[in-house]
């Protein structure tokens, strides 16, 4: 009974939450991750489950130390995020979140490429549903763009997996030899890990989800991709530099973000860069570093987004230019947020220090001085925007002029939110203070002590002098109501511009004959086209999405029939 995919626990929980009354559903929401965690702790490395499906040798459960490490933290953060969202999450969001977390676990314990693909697609749909359940126009549109990106990644994965199967006759998910099929799979994983320029879905969509939804999102999609990269592509040189670029790219864009949750979303890109670079180095130390950093990142990033979400929940605002002076109103949120902030910045005694140092030491051991320096510069930027700029703009400074008469705070932060943030803060401290036990969870034996005098002094000095630089230039960092264009401009604006250029030509064409009846039906499906040529019905986007999915599926089916 123990040797079953842990994802099933989450899927069963999602079904229960869908039908049970809300109060019992709350218990299920919290119990499911704990039950799955209990089950995972009972799994021994080497355990597995084989299944023959239409002649395919599948392995829906494969346990080793790499999958176990991700399994533990996926369950743990599932509990914390569920606790955080206990007050705010509606039934649909709870179901979506549990299904999403479960499919991420399915990915992590998949021993073959077909199971991996199924988990990958469920994860895409589940996470899009999490975004949509916020129910705002922004989350609807961003969720759709997000789903497009993820589904394209899924099709790349399927295409690569089938090609790989045709070439090797094996569906086992293990390290890939370089081949064109492997390139497709690599692209799918890189898209999901948010490697620029395939990353824009992340900062576009994550800040539009609900407060708890963003915590769920930050934990699973990119980290499941880091796991998949560590499993499939360790030692691929391209990943080293892709990771370094990510780490710096996220830092610069975070400096330009006004929405505090978008700022933190760009720091997901940046932090995942550390992991991707470590996977690219590919030594045992580096895979340990990537795993450790993914583990710690899930907890401290969850805490940061919980803190920013608590501000949004309490004030209804998430833009730095509309916030300020919250230190007196939300002091505990500030303290708990700061625990996450010093953790992500790699301050000694906190989780990010012991995990980041492991990755950087692996790069150093591999003789990559340039990578080490560039990653340390990225750390400077992380400290600068998450620990100095964001709290400065949110909790300190002046209360904004447009604040309501009673102050910015509209409602108190729910006790369950504080409980989740407190638990995440304690976990960050435990990892930072007792790295030995934490290192024991990693895939390979760790022989490393982060707390030597030299390393502590060096890290402290880098961070202190970042603070000096901030103090010198703080006047340049005033928040303004702006956004920064990113790669998503290419698909959000450019096609419209191109079409607008084509428009006059189209208008000169003779008008088509009145619709025959079958076309009228199609128009009804697509929604009413208003006088200015825009569609008014919300059915239209889903029609477009469905048509794309069916079209791509037909092409792939056609390809798969070619001998």
């Amino acid at each position: 009974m123990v040797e079953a995919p842990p994802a099933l626990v989450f899927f069963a929980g999602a079904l229960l939450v869908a039908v049970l009354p809300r109060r019992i559903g709350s218990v299920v929401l919290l119990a499911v991750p704990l039950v799955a965690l209990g089950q995972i702790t009972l799994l021994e490395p080497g355990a597995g489950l084989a299944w023959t499906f239409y002649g395919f040798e599948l392995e829906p459960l494969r346990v080793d130390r790499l999958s176990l490490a991700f399994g533990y933290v996926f369950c743990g953060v599932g509990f914390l995020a569920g606790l955080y969202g206990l007050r705010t999450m509606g039934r649909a969001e709870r179901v979506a979140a549990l299904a999403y977390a479960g499919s991420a676990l399915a990915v992590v314990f998949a021993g073959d490429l077909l199971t991996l693909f199924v988990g990958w697609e469920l994860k895409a749909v589940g996470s899009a549903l999490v975004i949509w359940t916020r129910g705002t126009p922004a989350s609807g549109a961003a969720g759709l763009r997000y789903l497009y990106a993820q589904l394209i990644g899924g099709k790349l994965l399927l295409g690569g997996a089938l090609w790989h199967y045709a070439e090797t006759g094996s569906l086992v998910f293990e390290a890939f030899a370089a081949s064109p099929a492997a390139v497709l799979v690599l692209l799918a994983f890189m898209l999901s890990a948010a490697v620029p320029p395939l990353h824009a879905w992340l900062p576009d969509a994550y800040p539009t989800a609900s407060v708890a939804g963003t915590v769920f999102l930050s934990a699973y999609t990119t980290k499941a991709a880091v796991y998949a990269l560590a499993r499939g592509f360790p030692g691929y040189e391209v990943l080293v530099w892709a990771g370094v670029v990510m780490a710096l790219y996220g830092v610069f864009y975070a400096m330009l973000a006004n929405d505090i949750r978008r700022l933190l979303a760009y720091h997901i890109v940046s932090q995942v860069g550390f992991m991707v670079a470590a996977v690219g180095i590919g030594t045992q130390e580096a895979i340990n570093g990537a795993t450790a950093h993914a583990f710690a990142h899930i907890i401290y990033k969850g805490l940061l987004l919980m803190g920013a979400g608590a501000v949004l929940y309490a004030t209804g605002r998430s833009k730095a230019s509309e916030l300020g002076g919250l230190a007196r109103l939300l002091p505990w949120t500030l303290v708990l947020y700061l625990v996450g902030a010093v953790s992500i910045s790699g301050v000694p005694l906190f989780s990010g220090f012991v995990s980041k140092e492991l990755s950087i030491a692996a790069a150093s051991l591999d003789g990559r001085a340039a990578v080490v320096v560039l990653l340390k510069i990225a750390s400077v930027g992380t400290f600068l925007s998450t620990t100095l700029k964001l709290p400065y703009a949110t909790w300190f400074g002046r209360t904004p002029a447009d604040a309501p008469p009673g102050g910015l705070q509209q409602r108190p932060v729910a006790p369950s939110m504080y409980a989740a943030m407190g638990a995440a803060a304690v976990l960050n401290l435990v990892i930072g203070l007792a790295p030995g036990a934490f290192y024991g969870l990693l895939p390979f034996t760790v022989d490393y002590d982060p707390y030597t005098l030299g390393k502590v002094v060096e890290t402290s000095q880098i961070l202190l002098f970042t603070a000096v630089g901030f103090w010198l230039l703080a006047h340049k960092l005033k928040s303004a109501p702006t956004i920064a264009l990113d790669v998503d401009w290419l698909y959000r604006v450019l096609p419209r511009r191109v079409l607008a250029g084509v428009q006059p030509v189209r208008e000169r064409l003779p008008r088509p004959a009145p619709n025959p009846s079958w076309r009228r039906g199609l128009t009804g499906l697509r929604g009413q086209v208003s006088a200015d040529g825009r569609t008014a019905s919300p059915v239209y986007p889903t029609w477009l999405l469905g048509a794309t999915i069916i079209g791509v599926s037909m092409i792939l089916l056609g390809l798969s029939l070619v001998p």
Partner: protein
Amino acid sequence: MKRGLVVALVCLLVGIGIDLLVGADPPGYAVTLGLAGCVGIILIAKWLGGAWLERPERYYEGQRHG
């Protein structure tokens, strides 16, 4: 601003002094990385934003309807 630069310089010297005490190699590496990294990131980000990337908040809504 002048006072700020003096404070930063004093901090730099103290930092390099600490490096010499604990035998960090090369002395001043961490303090330079922290200070130059921070100033560089702020200035480059401001330049990128001002010259290329920053748009009004409702930019994308304007693109859709305009």
